[in-house]
Structures are given as structure tokens and as C-alpha cells.
């Protein structure tokens, strides 16, 4: 569906994108994830045509659109700020693209109302000013405006970042549902890893203008290809020499020269060891109570590691308490030291 081949983008002397290669499949929800300044928005803007790459090409459905003007690309965008025209009503905002394309008035009216119904905007809301709508409603207007011209692809640039936490979660679900209903190929830009993991079919993790990994949420989370990815996505413990030596002593196959990481939920406290699990002695240093789970800070062989335990209400450990920490060496992700991010 969308193919980026060796895209290079430069701003003056600064190279913003180095040889970016992405292949997005039809109907896929594809996310560009990364910290700010990593090149994810630049990539998006290259697809939509706001930025022209120095080299490389953009294909949509097999057609090279690298040099096609923005308005002829048939790609819808939902902007970070929504970029709704403040001097127009909701109706006029949605109708704008159709008016530009000189669609007949009756047809415009039909399509605007149709799309409005699909994104759950009432006729009354259509006559309102954009400023009179809530953040969530505004987002729906932005989506309707992007979809009304029947684009082949829709691009969303951090569309949830302006909203408060609760609304963000709620709209995230709506977004996913809408994408399923419309079946439209979606490219989604975010720096929020939780958003990326919950929404995406596949994720491309960006860093400093490079793509570190492309994969399903499970792949990037559990099988992070690079040290940067494993650090950026989710919380993680880097295991110190003390712990590693203990593991080696217990017969585990661990490379001390590498950087070794383990996810918080892969460690267990005071449980019966399963096959292959190594038991280490530690002391609870402090704990954070989250309700759904409890996060323990445990001193273990000269370092503090974090462990998450489901809050089953049975075992809660107090600071100062001696505990057994169970590690399965298979859960360790190891990276070459030179890769350090």
C-alpha cells in the first residue's frame, strides 16, 4: 500500500531522516513511535507531501508519488492541533475539501451529513462554531474532515496529545473502532508508547532519524531489537554485574560483556520457582501502591531493581523485608555494549 524506499530528508546540514524504509499494508494501523525530534513527524510529512525528500521515493498502491503535489495525493490528515478553521462552522470545515474539489452542493451536503453521522456528530453540532465543541468532538470533526474526501490513507499526527489523560484513553478506543469500521489504512504518529501498543497493528520505532525496529506491539515489547527500543518501550531493569554473576554461578547462560535487561513483570517475588528460574535473595527497599499492581524496589546484589506484582491482596511485602526474587534467564534481553543509546 505505502512504500517508503531509502528516504533521506535534510534540513540544511542536518539530516533528519537516514534511509528510511517502511512498507505499510492495506488497511493496517501503522504507528511511528519515538521521542520528540526522532523524525517520525518528518516521515509523516514526507508521505503527505509537505516535505520533499533529498533522495528516495514514496509509493502508494504502486504509484510513485514522491513529486506529486500535496493536494493530489489523496491522503487525509488529522493534525496535532486538529487545525480546524476557527472562522468556519463545523459543517463548513468538513465541507471545505469537497468545495475545493468543486463537488455539487447537494452532493456535498449528502456526504457531509453521512460522514458526520458516522463519527457521531449531530446536525445541531454541524451548525456550531468549532470553538463551541469539546476536545473530543473537535477531534471527530478533524477526522470527518480528513475522511470526507475518501482518501486512500489517513495520517494522524499525535491527535491525542492535546487532551487530558481520561479523554485520551476514551478517544483512543473510539479511534481504533472508527479505523476498524472505515477499514482505512492509517499512519499514526505518537511519542506515547502505551498509545502505540494498544492501537497499532505494527509499530516503527524511530530514533535520531533512523528506524530501530518495525514489528507488532508484542515483537517490539518482548523482542526489542535494539537497546534503545527496549529502553524506550515500557519500564525495564538493566541488570548489574552482581546479579549477572549470581546468575552465571547458578548456571545461567549470560554474557557479562553485553548489556542485559529484564522487564519488571518477568521478575517474581517469593514464589515457587518454575523450571529454569533462578532464585536470588533481596530486601524490599520501598514500594509504590498502584491498586491494580504494586511496584517494589528491591535491593539485590548491590543494585536496586524494580519488580511488579499483581495486587492479589494476599502477599504485600513491607520495606525491610527479606524476599526471594525469581529470574528466568530466558527473559533477559542482551545487547552489544557499543549499541548503547
Amino acid at each position, binding site marked *: 500500500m505505502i512504500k517508503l524506499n531509502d528516504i533521506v530528508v535534510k534540513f540544511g546540514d542536518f539530516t533528519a531522516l537516514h534511509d528510511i524504509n517502511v512498507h505499510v499494508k492495506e488497511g493496517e494501523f501503522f504507528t511511528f513511535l519515538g521521542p520528540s525530534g526522532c523524525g517520525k513527524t518528518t516521515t509523516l510529512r514526507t508521505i503527505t507531501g509537505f516535505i*520533499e525528500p533529498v533522495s528516495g521515493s514514496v509509493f502508494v498502491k504502486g504509484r510513485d508519488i514522491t513529486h506529486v503535489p500535496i*493536494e493530489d495525493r489523496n491522503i*487525509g*490528515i488529522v493534525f496535532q492541533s486538529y487545525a480546524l478553521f476557527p472562522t468556519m462552522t463545523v459543517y463548513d470545515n468538513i465541507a*471545505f475539501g469537497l468545495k475545493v474539489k468543486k463537488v455539487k452542493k447537494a452532493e456535498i451536503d449528502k456526504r457531509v451529513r453521512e460522514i458526520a453521522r458516522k463519527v457521531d456528530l449531530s446536525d445541531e453540532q454541524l451548525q456550531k462554531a*468549532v470553538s*463551541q465543541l469539546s476536545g473530543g468532538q473537535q477531534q471527530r470533526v478533524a477526522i470527518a474532515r480528513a475522511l470526507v*474526501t475518501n482518501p486512500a490513507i489517513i495520517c494522524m499526527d499525535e491527535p491525542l496529545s492535546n487532551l487530558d489523560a481520561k479523554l485520551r484513553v476514551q478517544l483512543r478506543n473510539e479511534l481504533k473502532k472508527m479505523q476498524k469500521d472505515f477499514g482505512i489504512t492509517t499512519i499514526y504518529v505518537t511519542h506515547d508508547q502505551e498509545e502505540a501498543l494498544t492501537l497499532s497493528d505494527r509499530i516503527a520505532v524511530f530514533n535520531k532519524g533512523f528506524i530501530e525496529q518495525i514489528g507488532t506491539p508484542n515483537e517490539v515489547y518482548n523482542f526489542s531489537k535494539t537497546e534503545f527500543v527496549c529502553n524506550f518501550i515500557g519500564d525495564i531493569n538493566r541488570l548489574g554485574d552482581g546479579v549477572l554473576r549470581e546468575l552465571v554461578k547458578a548456571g545461567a547462560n549470560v554474557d557479562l560483556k553485553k548489556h542485559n535487561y529484564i522487564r519488571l513483570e518477568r521478575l517474581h517475588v517469593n514464589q515457587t520457582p518454575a523450571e529454569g528460574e533462578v532464585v536470588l535473595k533481596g530486601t524490599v527497599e520501598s514500594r509504590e501502591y498502584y491498586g491494580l499492581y504494586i511496584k517494589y524496589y528491591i535491593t539485590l546484589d548491590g543494585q536496586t531493581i524494580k519488580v511488579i506484582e499483581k495486587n492479589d491482596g494476599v502477599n504485600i511485602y513491607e520495606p525491610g523485608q527479606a524476599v526471594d526474587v525469581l529470574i528466568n534467564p530466558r527473559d533477559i534481553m542482551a545487547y552489544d555494549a557499543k549499541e548503547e543509546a
Partner: protein
Amino acid sequence: MNGDKRRFTPELVLRILLLILFAYFFLGFMLVPCLNTLTSIFNEKTDGVRDPLKVIRFFMAGSMPRFVWNSLKLAICLVITVNVVGISLVLLTEYFDIKGAKILRMGYMTTMIYSGVALVTGYMFLYAGDGMITTLLKNAFPNFNPNWFSGFNAVLFTMTFACTSNHMLFLRNAIRGIDYNTVEAARNMGANPFKVLWKVVLPTLIPTLFSLTVMTFITGLCAMSAPTLLGYDSINPEIVRLAGSTTADESFPQARAALLSIILALFTIVLLTVLSAYERKGHYLSVSKTKAKLQKQKINNPVANVIAHIYAYILFVIYMTPVVMIIVFSFQNYTAIKARRLDLHDWTLINFFGTADYTYLNDRGREKTVVGAISGVFSNEKTLGGIKLSFILSAVAAALACIIVIVACNYIFKKKGKKMSAVVEYALLFPWLLPTILICYSYRTFFNSDAVWYVGNQNLYFGQNVKLLIILAYTVVKLPFSLRMIKASFYAIDEELEDAARNLGSSGLRTFLQVKLPIILPSVLAVFALNFNALFTEYDMSATFQSPNGITYAMVIQGMLADASRGANMNALGRRCASTVFIMIVSGLILYLVYGVGSRDLGERLDAKKRWRDRFDRLTGKRKKALKA
């Protein structure tokens, strides 16, 4: 971007054309005329040899420094009096709990609806030798000098109260922006209200006060209408006098006028440089994330409280008396006006509409009639002519300034950070550095010749051409203000809006017209209205041009001073009052439109529309019910 390369070729041509046009106007109508003024000082000859220092020698030896000193004296005194009064006004209406603050504020803000000639003639009506209040004072105190209201005293008095508009706008905003939590914190730590005022509130106002001080100083230096009408020898009236003089009357008047205007320009440039350097430092920004609204401070000491109230109301009376008197007397007959005595039984609209004959008994006891000697503002040919001329010149210039600035801003924002956009911006701000009179004087002397090739060897000062020259001057003078205001509104355009419009297929022009322009339109209309408002009653510039074909409204009003003494124009004084009332109505309306209606966004407008519709439905519904019954 590739899209640009493909489609924007005609736009590129347009852009280059506009840049050339812009350069033509900047060089031809700002730089060259003003440089001509500057060089004219050094071109005088002694015995046929160029003597660059001749004018300056003459200047130093003669009475010329007196004008500079007088202007400086006025400026320095004004800085003190205007700040004292201006700060008082703001504190009394915004900071202290004074009873009737809303009404007081309305009174203090009256200077915003009439200024310049209209205001000065209003003050003269009250305070001149035969003025109402002077007469009252003379009757009460026989030793009172009836001519107190002339020269320096009169100018200082009038301008002290006339120049507080900026305080009421900017200082008021500044004090309302104070975080009340800081006041509460100081009180909580034991400071009394006056200590809080001195230690917490005033320091945060210092940047604003500094700007206001510089602005007041420049206003004092460049004062025109008050010194001219009240007879005070300051720089500007002297420049105008010299500009109208010839070498037959005195030694090189033109070069001296040029020298004076250059001196004025130097002062202005230095002051504005200091101001902008100071503003760039950006002091005392509020650090609060959540500001609490300022609450009025009660003055607990009963004596202080009474004194504050008396002070507030004395100021109110000073501000309101001219306004009330002018309004009241504009509906009075010439006899009542001449005697400065209200005739409660005889109200008339003759000062506004219609004409009447003037009948009197001559020396031989015969009745004589002067036909049409009494006429209203809208019936008097001369007055109506002035109104029409001012209306057209101001409207055209105000619109031109807006259009030039919009086009320039669009360019500046497109080419943000590029050298060319900075050049365009500074070129537009250039007139800000120069006193208005320097620009007008330069126009008058430079274009009063048919040797200027780039205007087709036309003498722009000659005949009807002067109207074009006035429009040009008005436009140029209004560019910096328009730029500052409209540029600020361009910042409100989210860059993503432009991207969104392009993504939806909109061309550059369409995006500008349908997306960007509607966003900045309220600001543009406001700037247009404010420009128009200022130019409509403008006096300084048209007085500098002194052309019989460019007699603006303010000049007509000034002329009514002279008319008043002649029998042929009996009700000139009444017409003057009526003129001022007309100006107040026009300005008031414009300010209401700008700040009241114009500041609403689409949502508020839709709400208002809905309210009106509901009201209408309710009314018609009721009527239907009534009909049924």
C-alpha cells in the same frame, strides 16, 4: 518543495512585482523625501559658496533654541503631570475601592472619543478669557487673572488631561494582569495596603510606566494642536509657520524648518531606541501559572478614604465638564453660546442641521439681515466639505495601510527568518522613528516641484494633487501601528491550518482568502477603524500641508475659532461644539464596534444570532397568540 516549483510561477512573478512596488514606495515616499529634508540644511550658500554650517550657526545665534527648549520643557513637565494623573486614574478605578468607580472610569475615558483640535477647542470654550469657568472664577475672585489659560499653562493643563488615554488603556491592562495572590501574600506577611502598592504592585507596573513615559515625552515634544491653538512657541507650530514662509520674509525658512524637524527626529530616535532596548529585556514577567483576579483594596483609614474619594471626583469633574458643556451647548442658540449662559427654554438643532438668517439692528436703528449666517455642521458648506474630505482621505489611507501591511505580513510570515522579510518589516516600521511633521514637511517641500521623475514630473503639492499627497502621508504614518497590530494577529494563525488547507486541495490564494484572512479580519477591521478614527480628526499633518485644497475637518474646526468673531458666521462657536459632538459619536461608535462587537469569535456571534432569533420568535409567537385571542 516540488509543489511550489510547479504551480507557483505566477505567484512568484506577483511576489517579485510586489517587492518592486514596495521598494518604489519605500524609497520614493519615505527615504528620498526625508533625506532631501536632511540635506537641505547643509545646502545654504554664503556668497555663492556652499556653507554647510550656515543654518546651524544661524540657529544657534538666533531665537531658535527657544523653540527646542520650550518643547523640551513641555515634554518634561508633561511626563510628570500625565503620569501623576494617569496613575491616579488607574489606581482610583482599578486598585482602590472607590464608590462609583464604573462611572468614574467612563468619565476618565472620554479622552478616547475626542482629542486634538476637538478637545483643545472644547477646553478653550471653558477656560479661555471669555470662557464659562474663567468667567465664573473671575466673578468669585475679582483678582483672578482672566487670561490664565494661555501659553505654557494652558498647554500643560490641557495636555495633562488629554494625554491620559494611553494610561487608561495600557496601565489599566497591566494592573488588571497582576496576580492577586501576590497581593494576598504580601498582606499575609503583614504589609499594609499602601506598602503593598509601593512594594508589590508598582514594581510590576514599571515596564508599562516606562513605555508610557517615553510615549508621553514624545507626545509633548511633538505637540501640535494645543500649542498652535493656545499660543505656545514650541517646535511643531514653528515648523509649520516656517514651512509656509518664504525667503522674502526671513532667512532660509525652509532649511530652518528642516533643521527643527531633524532635531525632533533625533530626539524621537534616541527615545525609541532606549524604549525598545528596554522592552527587549522583558522584565517582570508574571511567573504565576494560575492567576487570581485583582480585588479592589478598601482604604481603611477614613480620612485617606474621604480624600481619595474627593480627589477621584474632582478629576471626574475636570474630565466631564468639557464633554457635558460641549454637548449641552451644541443644542443652544448663538446668543446663549456667546454669553456662555444656558438658556433652558430654548433648545435648537441649528448647530447640526439647517440654516437661518441673522437679523440685527445697525447703527442707524435699521434692521439688517445676513442671509444664511447661521448654519449647522451638516448644512454649512465649508464644514461639510471638511467632513467629506476627511472622511474620504482617512478611509482611503486607513484601508491602504491595512492592505499594504496584510500583504507584507503574509510575505514576512512566509519567509520567516529570511533577510528580505526583515528588510520589509523594518521598512514598514521606519516612519515610526520619524515625527509625523518631518514626513509631512518633507513631502510638502520635496513634491512641491515638477522635477521628481518617479511621480511623472507632477507637482504633487499643486492643486488637487495635494489630496493624493495627504493620502500618501496618512498611509505612511499609519504603517507602523498597523504592522504591529496586524502582525500580532498573524501569530494567531496556526501553521497547521495552512497545511490542512493545502492538504484538502486549496491553492495558496484560496487558503489566504478563505482560511487566513477570516482569522485576521477582526484585527484588520479594528486597525482600519482605529486608523480611520485617528485620521478623521487629524490636525497636525493637514496643518503642515496648509493647502486650500486639503482643508480637513480639524482645520475647519480650527477655522471656526476665527469665524466666531465675525458677524457673517454667527454660530461658529455652536457649530464647533456640534462638530465635537459629531466626532465623539463617530469615535464612540468606532470604539464600540472595535472592542465590543469586533472581539467576538464565531461561536459568540452564532450565540448572539440565536438569541436574537429566539427573541424574535418569542415576540412573533406572542403576537400570533394575541391575534388568535
